[in-house]
């Protein structure tokens, strides 16, 4: 394995929104790091702050949002020798537009219909970024756009260049969006629910496409999703987010085969299991907390049947489990009572490990 090189570091990020109902603390102290060529997934329910964190990295928060604290450090290569490190939160909006957005960090949004301009042919939309960021001559940009469209698997690229978004299917549109995102050779790609609006068959094709491109270009990718199937497929590392905090983070194997946070247990249990014929799905009782109100203690405590007394008073810190794995739950405190995984989940993980050949690969 080559040396890991961090390209994005987020430290203690706090974001709040002013709304008519009061202040919503959407992100409460998020830490995140992404290495070159790595895929990091952020998993969480809607309202857990995963999209907001990504938007902060891109500098495209909504007007009523403020960043109350934290640091976002991003480094890129201006030329093969010259590495530049910048604090995104200290940069002016125009500066971010000029140097970061689209050029170094690109984003793919959930709904390809709303992220494409309906009045401009798709080919022109792919060329737009190159012309703006690099002053690429039009002919060259056009050639490159064709190349990109072929890269993302669009046949008949020349003809499709002149198509408008509405003339393409959902999967095609999302491919165009990915082509636009890749047009300026970014170092980091943020995919915000890139396949939620698509069907399963197209979903796996798009994911495989992004993986392929990633290998070719040493691209780092952040996936924001609520679909654990997607995470299992693409991610190297996983961050589970709940109520504006990362509650568990680790490698895919850590989180799927050795989950420690009760919320992660709930998420894993709630997935319909194709291997068994259970009569009922497991559900996490209750609903996520309203972030309008100040949260004392552990935000997940009211829905957690393993909650301890301390959970209602003090917020748990991140406990280290291994070099790669950490989780924020008091259950990991040395003095906490020993709590075992729920039995069904333990059986399921056991079965997943067996089916996946976990033991064989561990023995090697």
């Amino acid at each position, binding site marked *: 394995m080559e040396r890991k090189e961090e390209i994005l570091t987020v430290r203690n990020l706090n974001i709040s929104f002013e709304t008519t109902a009061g202040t919503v603390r959407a992100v409460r102290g998020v830490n995140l790091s992404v290495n070159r060529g790595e895929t990091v997934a952020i998993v969480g329910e809607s309202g857990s702050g995963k999209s907001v964190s990504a938007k902060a990295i891109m500098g495209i928060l909504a007007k009523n949002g403020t960043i109350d604290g934290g640091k976002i450090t991003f480094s890129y290569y201006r030329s093969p020798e010259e590495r530049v490190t910048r604090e995104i939160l200290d940069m002016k909006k125009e500066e971010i537009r000029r140097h970061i957005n689209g050029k170094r960090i690109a984003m793919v949004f959930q709904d390809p219909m709303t992220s494409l301009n309906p009045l401009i042919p798709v080919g022109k939309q792919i060329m737009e970024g190159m012309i703006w960021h690099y002053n690429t001559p039009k002919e060259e940009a056009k050639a490159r756009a064709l190349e990109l469209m072929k890269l993302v698997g669009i046949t008949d690229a020349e003809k499709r260049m002149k198509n408008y978004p509405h003339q393409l299917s959902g999967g095609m549109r999302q491919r165009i969006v990915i082509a636009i995102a890749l047009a300026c050779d970014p170092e980091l790609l943020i995919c915000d629910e890139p396949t939620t609006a698509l*069907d399963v*068959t197209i979903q796996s094709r798009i994911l*495989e496409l992004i993986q392929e491109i990633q290998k070719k270009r040493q691209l780092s990718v952040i996936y924001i999703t609520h*679909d*654990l199937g997607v995470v299992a*497929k693409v991610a190297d590392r996983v961050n589970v987010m709940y109520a504006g905090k990362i509650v568990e983070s680790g490698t895919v194997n850590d989180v*799927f085969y050795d989950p420690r946070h009760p919320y992660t247990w709930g998420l894993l249990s709630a*997935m319909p299991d194709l291997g068994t014929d259970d009569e009922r799905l497991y559900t996490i009782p209750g*609903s996520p907390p309203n972030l309008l109100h100040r949260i004392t203690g552990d935000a997940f405590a009211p829905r957690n049947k393993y909650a301890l007394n301390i959970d209602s008073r003090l917020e748990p810190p991140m406990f280290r489990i291994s070099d790669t794995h950490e989780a924020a739950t008091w259950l990991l405190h040395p003095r906490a009572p020993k709590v075992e995984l729920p039995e069904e989940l333990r059986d399921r993980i056991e079965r997943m490990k067996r089916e996946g050949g*976990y033991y064989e690969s561990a023995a090697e």
Partner: protein
Amino acid sequence: MNQLQSNSVFPLLEVKGLRQYFPISRRYTVKAVEDVSFYINPGETYGLVGESGSGKTTIGRAIIRLYNPTAGQIFFDGRDISGHMNRETERELRINMQMIFQDPMACLNPRQKVADIIAQGIDIHHRYHSLKERSEMVSDILHKVGLAPEHADRYPHQFSGGQRQRVGIARALIMNPKLIIADECISALDMSIQAQVVNLMKDIQQETGLAYLFIAHDLSMVKYISDRIGVLHLGYLLETGTTEEIFSHPVHPYTQSLISAIPNPNPLLERNRTAKKYDYKTSGIDYSAGSMHLIEGTHYVRCTDAELDGWV
């Protein structure tokens, strides 16, 4: 198409050779649904799956008669509801068949209180004698879907997504229907909430014995909730059978590709998995040439004789 009839019970809903076309201009007609036949038994859940544009929503809307079917017959509870309906038939249909929509925010009137939204059906059909009875019915139904009676005086925006979908279910349930058409009713919800809603739907089914037509593109959820499944593609019903039959012996290449594309939440398997590719244009299969062939039991596939020989 008689072979598609159920043999044991008299089906609650029977769709025979349904076609639904939408004329766009004089020259161009969108053929959304082509020759679809299936049935739903009382108390059963039938899952319709397919990608977007496959016509699954159109079928649901044609059955509940939001559209006028171009051709084919629909029998509901022994009555023909496909053509012109007399007043009595229409009344029966409007009471006994209800629908739950995909986006709970879009389908609830934001300016009505939840009590009025839920009671709209019983208001129209005069199902109560006094206002006291009306509010009792509403709070009963709220209780049934896991909401509190005091929620009745709130507006839709005061609820979370999962709670709103519960209101949508309550609105359908208050008529005590025999069939509920659930059109992608959980796709807009978060995963932990999806499980809650699906469990609720199952509980209600056990209690009242109603049937569901469950329309979705998420196969893992469909597998979980359905007794039988129909696979749609480009307006054709390609394969139908019990959940077991479809998932353990998918015959049609499209069904196979669909099942192979279900994400498996097991990273070690998932990373090495590639979905089976299927392209109608290059597959050489002509849906319109095929007809329904029996595989075994209730398992049917749409194909020609030659194609079937190649697949089985």
